[in-house]
C-alpha cells in the first residue's frame, strides 16, 4: 500500500495551510482547524505531525527532537514516520534542517530565517487552569482581558517565594495575545523573542493552531518587583562542558550518583566533536 506524500491527503493539507496562514497573520491567536486522526495517540504530537505534514516538500530536511534529544522514542518514531510516508531526508543536525518538529525544547543552536520550528502542544489555552469555560476564555482573549494570568503568578510567589512556573511559562505575543509557548522550559522563552525562524504550534486533540511569525515581540509575563528569570545551574555539562545550555539531571546508578548533561543532544555532540578535532 502507498500513502499520499506525507500521509495526509491534499485537501487536508490545504485546510491546514489555510489555517496556518491565518495563524501567521494574527500572531498568537488560536485558529481552530479540522484535526485528523493520526496513526499514533493523542499526546504523542498529533498536532505537530499534522503541521509538519502540511509543510513538508520533497526537498525538505527534517529534524525531530523530544526534550532536546534526537534519539528518544517519540523523536525516532516521528522521524521514521516521515522518512517512510514522505521519503524526505532526515538529520540530527540543527544547522542542516529546514524543518524541525520539537517537543518541549527549542534547540540551543540559533535558528535561521530559512528554518521553521513546529511545536507539539498539549494545551493551547494558557488560561485553562484558571478558567475552565472555553466561551469565557475566548471572550477574555477577544477583550485582551488578561489580569487572570497574573493570579497564577501571584499564587506562585505567595506559595514558593518566587515565580515557580518553570515550563509552559505564559507569554504575550506582539503585545496582544496571551499565548502558551507549549511546555518548553522558561529557559527557552527568550529564544521566542525576535526569532528569525517561523514558529508554528499545533494542538491535535484541542484542534488549535497558532504561530509566532519571525521577528515578533514576545514578552514573558512578570511582576515589576519579581521580573522574569530563566533557570541557572551551578554545574556545567559533564560531556561537553557547556555552561550556557539547558541541563538535564540524570541519575546514573543505584546509589543516586547524579550527572548534569545538555538536554540538546545535537548541540552537545557538536561541541564534543569540535573539542576532539
Amino acid at each position, binding site marked *: 500500500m502507498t500513502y499520499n506524500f506525507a500521509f495526509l491527503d491534499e485537501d487536508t493539507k490545504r485546510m491546514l495551510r489555510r489555517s496556518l496562514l491565518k495563524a501567521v497573520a494574527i500572531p498568537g491567536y488560536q485558529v481552530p482547524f479540522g484535526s485528523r486522526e493520526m496513526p499514533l495517540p493523542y499526546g504523542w504530537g498529533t498536532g505537530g505531525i499534522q503541521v509538519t505534514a502540511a509543510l513538508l516538500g520533497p526537498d525538505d530536511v527534517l529534524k525531530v527532537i523530544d526534550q532536546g534529544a534526537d534519539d528518544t522514542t517519540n523523536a525516532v518514531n516521528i522521524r521514521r514516520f516521515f522518512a517512510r510516508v514522505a521519503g524526505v531526508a532526515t538529520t540530527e543536525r540543527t544547522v542542516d534542517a529546514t524543518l524541525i518538529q520539537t517537543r518541549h525544547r527549542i534547540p540551543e543552536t540559533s535558528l535561521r530565517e530559512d528554518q521553521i520550528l513546529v511545536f507539539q502542544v498539549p494545551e493551547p489555552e494558557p488560561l485553562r487552569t484558571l478558567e475552565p469555560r472555553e466561551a469565557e476564555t475566548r471572550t477574555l482573549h477577544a477583550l485582551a482581558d488578561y489580569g487572570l494570568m497574573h493570579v497564577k503568578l501571584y499564587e506562585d510567589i505567595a*506559595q514558593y517565594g518566587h515565580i515557580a512556573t518553570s515550563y509552559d511559562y505564559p507569554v504575550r505575543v506582539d503585545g496582544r495575545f496571551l499565548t502558551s509557548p507549549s511546555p518548553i522550559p522558561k529557559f527557552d522563552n527568550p529564544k521566542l523573542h525576535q526569532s528569525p525562524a517561523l514558529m508554528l504550534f499545533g494542538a491535535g486533540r484541542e484542534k488549535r493552531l497558532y504561530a509566532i511569525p519571525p521577528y515578533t515581540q514576545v514578552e514573558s509575563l512578570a511582576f515589576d518587583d519579581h521580573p522574569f528569570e530563566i533557570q541557572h545551574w551551578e554545574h556545567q555539562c559533564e560531556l561537553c562542558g557547556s555552561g550556557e545550555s539547558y541541563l538535564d539531571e540524570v541519575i546514573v546508578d543505584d546509589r543516586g550518583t547524579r550527572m548534569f548533561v545538555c538536554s540538546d543532544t545535537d548541540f552537545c555532540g557538536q561541541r564534543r566533536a569540535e573539542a576532539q578535532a
Partner: protein
Amino acid sequence: MSVLLKVRNLSRHYGTRVGCEDVSFDLHPGELLCIVGESGSGKSTLLNTVAAQLAPTSGSVSYRQRDGQWLSVNALSEADRRRLAREEWGFVTQNPRDGLRLNVSAGANVAERLMALGMRNYSQLRGIARSWLERVEIDPERIDDAPTGFSGGMQQRLQIARTLVTQPRLVFMDEPTAGLDVSVQARILDLLRRLVNELGLAAVMVTHDLAVARLLAARTIVMQRGRVVETGLTDQILDDPQHPYTQLLVSSVLTT
C-alpha cells in the same frame, strides 16, 4: 447631590412569565437601597437586570460615571460592560463560592481585581490584600490559605473584601447574609454598614429580611409578583406600611 443610577420602567420577562415589571427608581451617591419581598417576587431578577447581567425586556438603566457622563447601561458593548463591572461596580453574591475563586489563596482573591486593572507590583498587591483582610476582620496571617478552608461567614467577608478592594462607586448585593447564622449575620451587617459609610458607597441590596433593611437602608422598595408595591423611607415603610402586602410582611416578622 445628583443622581448616580436611574432606572426607568424596567421589565424583564422569562417568556410569558414576569420576572420584574415596570420598575423605576433613582439611586444617589452614598445611598443604600434595599429591595425586599418574598422569594419569587422578582428581587434578584431586578438586581441582575439593573447590574446588566440580564438583558431587560423593556425599560432603561442609566449610570453616571466617575467623569460625570451618563451611560446607557443596556446599550453598552461587552467590553464596556466588563470595564464598568471591573472599575466602577461590584457584585456580592449570596453564595460566596459563586463570587470567589476557590482554587487560589485568599490574597489572590482580593488582589485579582487590582491585577485586572493592571497593577503589577507584587509587594504592593500583597500589602493591599493584607490591609483589606484586616478591614473585613480576617486574620492577615491567613492571606495564603485557600478560601475552601474558611467558614461561611469568613468566605462572605472575603468576597466583600475582594469586591470593595478597587473602591467601586456602586455595589450590588444579592442576599449577602442569607444562609449564615444569626450572630455571623449581625457581624457582617455591622461590617457592611461601617464600610459603606467609610467609602461613601452607593449600594443596592436584595434581602428578604426586614431587619437587614431596617439596619442598613435609608430607603426600601417592596416587591410582590415582580411589581413594586410600596417604596419610601425604610422606617416609614416598616412603622407605617400602607400596602396590604407590606403590612403582612411587617406583621409576620418574629419579635422577641
